[in-house]
């Protein structure tokens, strides 16, 4: 037992430690650890099986009276009611599990394997979202052309003790990096509808943000997410969730974090660099319809955040932004399944609207002029998508989206910075086939007008496979 935990801890430390400082760990050593753990469980299960076989035989002999009734049809036999029922205030019942009905493993591991082939008509290397100055490292656009390993992810989860549950998602990126996507502990015993989470986690703002990429209905995040939330906003911090004691679903989540990723920046500072709050409500309409909608607010602070821009004659420059970003997200999803049974046919309509303001100062062209000045921008964007499973295993999806970059106000530096014109738009069509709930093949075609000039035609073939623990998916 103890050694199992040490091993589990070792697996986590290995992954977390190497993500922080060391080079990428070889996945083989992780696998070896997991194999060792599995072997140990199997040994324990076998021991349990031996013990339980005896119990099973006892149970069978208890059922014998019921069987004997079959031999004498018509005879009404009323067996004595078990004593445990007749006597009030009995002690806790002892479950009589049989054979492999052993409890689930202490640590549940799942591995998502994903890969893709991408064909684009324009070079992804100079991808940008016009009107949205973003850090040079921003994860935007279709990624690399040709074959690539898409993000593969190791998920580990377990109850820690009667009070806490832990979860870690370790992502292996195509360029041999390992990153800790999420790693948090969560309370299970506060009651009163309260849950406290601490560690690294995806923010609960919006609808798509908290979901792992492999559960998304399209290959990529909507443009509005890429431009205003850094693709998907995750942070190190704490989150308190409260679910109201009402029949109608109503939930509030409040978060405080360091603000380590866009639209914030990691800095050496006490206190919180990010604060977010989200409220969601939802329910059913009859047996066939269900919905959820919400409003979220995120505030993050940036210090000397490098933003890729260009000067008045079009040469690339780097600006540095210091100030606050506020993002409002309105999200809504509506699902239809005949009689509430989605296995054959179902439809999902989902939309989000993001509104972002940035307010502070900008140093224009940090390596050249280094001219400071005030900065203010109000930007927005939305997407609307529909997913239709028209027969078992087959789904088709359509997503339409548009951004409004507004006119950023560079104050004293107006004139030094070149401004884009026009609104980025994108249309995406998706077809996927899931032989089982653990595997999926997807074909996606998109006409991307995020850059000025010709549209970028993006074609992607993708697979996503889930190994290991049976993951439950959120709504």
């Amino acid at each position: 037992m103890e050694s199992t935990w040490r091993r589990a801890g070792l697996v986590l430390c290995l992954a977390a430690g190497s993500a922080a400082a060391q080079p990428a760990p070889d996945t083989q050593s992780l696998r070896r650890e997991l194999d060792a753990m599995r072997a140990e469980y199997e040994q324990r299960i076998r021991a349990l099986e031996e013990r339980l076989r005896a119990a099973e035989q006892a149970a069978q002999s208890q059922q014998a009276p019921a069987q004997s009734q079959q031999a004498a049809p018509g005879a009404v036999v009323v067996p004595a009611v078990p004593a445990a029922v007749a006597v009030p205030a009995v002690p806790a019942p002892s479950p009589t599990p049989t054979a492999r009905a052993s409890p689930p493993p202490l640590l549940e591991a799942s591995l998502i394997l994903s890969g893709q082939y991408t064909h684009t008509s324009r070079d992804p290397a100079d991808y940008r979202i016009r009107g949205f100055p973003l850090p040079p490292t921003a994860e935007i656009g279709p990624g690399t052309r040709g074959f690539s390993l898409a993000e593969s992810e190791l998920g580990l989860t377990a109850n820690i003790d009667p009070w806490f549950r832990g979860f870690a998602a370790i992502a292996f990126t195509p360029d041999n990096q390992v990153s800790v996507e999420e790693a948090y502990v969560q309370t299970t015993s506060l009651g009163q509808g309260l849950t406290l989470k601490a560690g690294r986690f995806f923010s609960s703002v919006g609808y798509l943000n908290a979901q792992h990429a492999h559960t998304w209905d399209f290959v990529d995040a909507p443009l509005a997410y890429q431009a205003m939330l850094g693709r998907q906003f995750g942070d190190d911090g704490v989150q308190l969730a409260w679910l109201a004691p009402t029949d109608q679903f109503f939930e509030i989540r409040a978060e405080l974090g360091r603000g380590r990723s866009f639209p914030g920046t990691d800095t050496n500072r006490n206190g919180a660099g990010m604060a977010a709050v989200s409220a969601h409500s939802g329910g059913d309409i009859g047996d066939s319809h269900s919905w959820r909608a919400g409003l979220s607010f995120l505030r993050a602070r940036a210090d000397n955040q490098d933003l890729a821009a260009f000067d008045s004659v079009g040469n690339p420059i780097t600006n540095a932004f210091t100030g606050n970003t506020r993002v409002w997200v309105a999200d809504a999803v509506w699902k239809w399944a005949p009689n509430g049974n989605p296995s054959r046919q179902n439809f999902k309509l989902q939309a989000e609207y993001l509104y972002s303001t940035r307010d502070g100062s900008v140093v224009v062209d940090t390596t050249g002029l280094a001219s400071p000045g005030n900065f203010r921008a109000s930007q927005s964007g939305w997407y609307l998508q529909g997913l239709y499973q028209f027969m078992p295993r087959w789904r088709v999806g359509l997503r339409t989206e548009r951004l409004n970059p507004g006119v950023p106000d560079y104050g004293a530096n107006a004139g030094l910075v070149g401004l884009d014109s026009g609104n980025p738009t994108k249309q995406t069509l998706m077809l996927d086939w899931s032989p089982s709930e653990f595997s999926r093949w997807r074909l996606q075609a998109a006409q991307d007008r995020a850059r000025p000039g010709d549209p970028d035609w993006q074609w992607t073939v993708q697979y996503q496979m889930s190994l290991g623990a049976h993951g439950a998916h959120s709504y």
Partner: protein
Amino acid sequence: MKQLLAAAVAALALAAAPAHAALKVLACEPEWGALAQELGGSLVDVSVATTSLQDPHQIQARPSLIARTRNADLVVCTGAELEAGWLPVLLQQSGNDRVQPGRAGNFAAADYVRKLEIPASLDRSQGDVHAAGNPHIQTDPRNIAAVATALATRLQQVDTAHAAQYGERAAAFQQKWQQAIARWNAQAVPLRGLPVASQHKGYVYLYDWLGMKEVVVLEPKPGVEPSAAHLQGVLAALKATPARMVLYSAYQDPRPSEWLGKNAGIPVVKIPFTVGGSDAAKDLFGLFDDTLARLLAAAGGK
């Protein structure tokens, strides 16, 4: 002033009187909702997460279900991984400590019966197999009796103030139930040894109880819809080992069974599978009355 104060105190006492509030039970499937109702009567306020027309393997963790889990005193589910795709999300997001696994408010019926079809090896190439054994335990009334005993004990534990009443109700239910089992056993004699086909591996406990023989399953792997080619194969297999009828559940697409019924010339039997799965299956007694009536009608028609 005094009267006002007294009224306020009375109002407060009324508002904060959980002792008289019914125990809130959330059942994952209709059969456990019906059983909780039988055992709890007016002491319980039962809500059911799924209907007889829904596939209990494939439910989504909808906001309405999260809200109901939040307020439940006792969650009664099948267990044995049947709800693995959705129940963990409900429990995690509910913020309800009373119903977490391992607590008194979390009840898994499959823990209290002898399970069948426990796979010797666990490999997803075999389809969506359940490591804990076949979870569709509710099709054998002897399992219902075993679960009733355990559930009554659990109700007594969660709602100690009414332990005596649960005990009385449970004793009365068991007496009625054993009489019903004896009646069903007598009725079901003609079904003994009958070879049958099933659309999903959902009736192993029913067959075990009645002594029926499953000769073929329409789903190529558990949870995988049969293709036309696979159905042709099933039809060919039936030439060698004929079945007397083909069974499917109320929540399932009837077309594979209907196709086989037509082409093999055997009756197609829609099994209510759970309470509410047919007009006659209004409660647990109706569920088995109707299941047997349908099976006997199909067996007698030949």
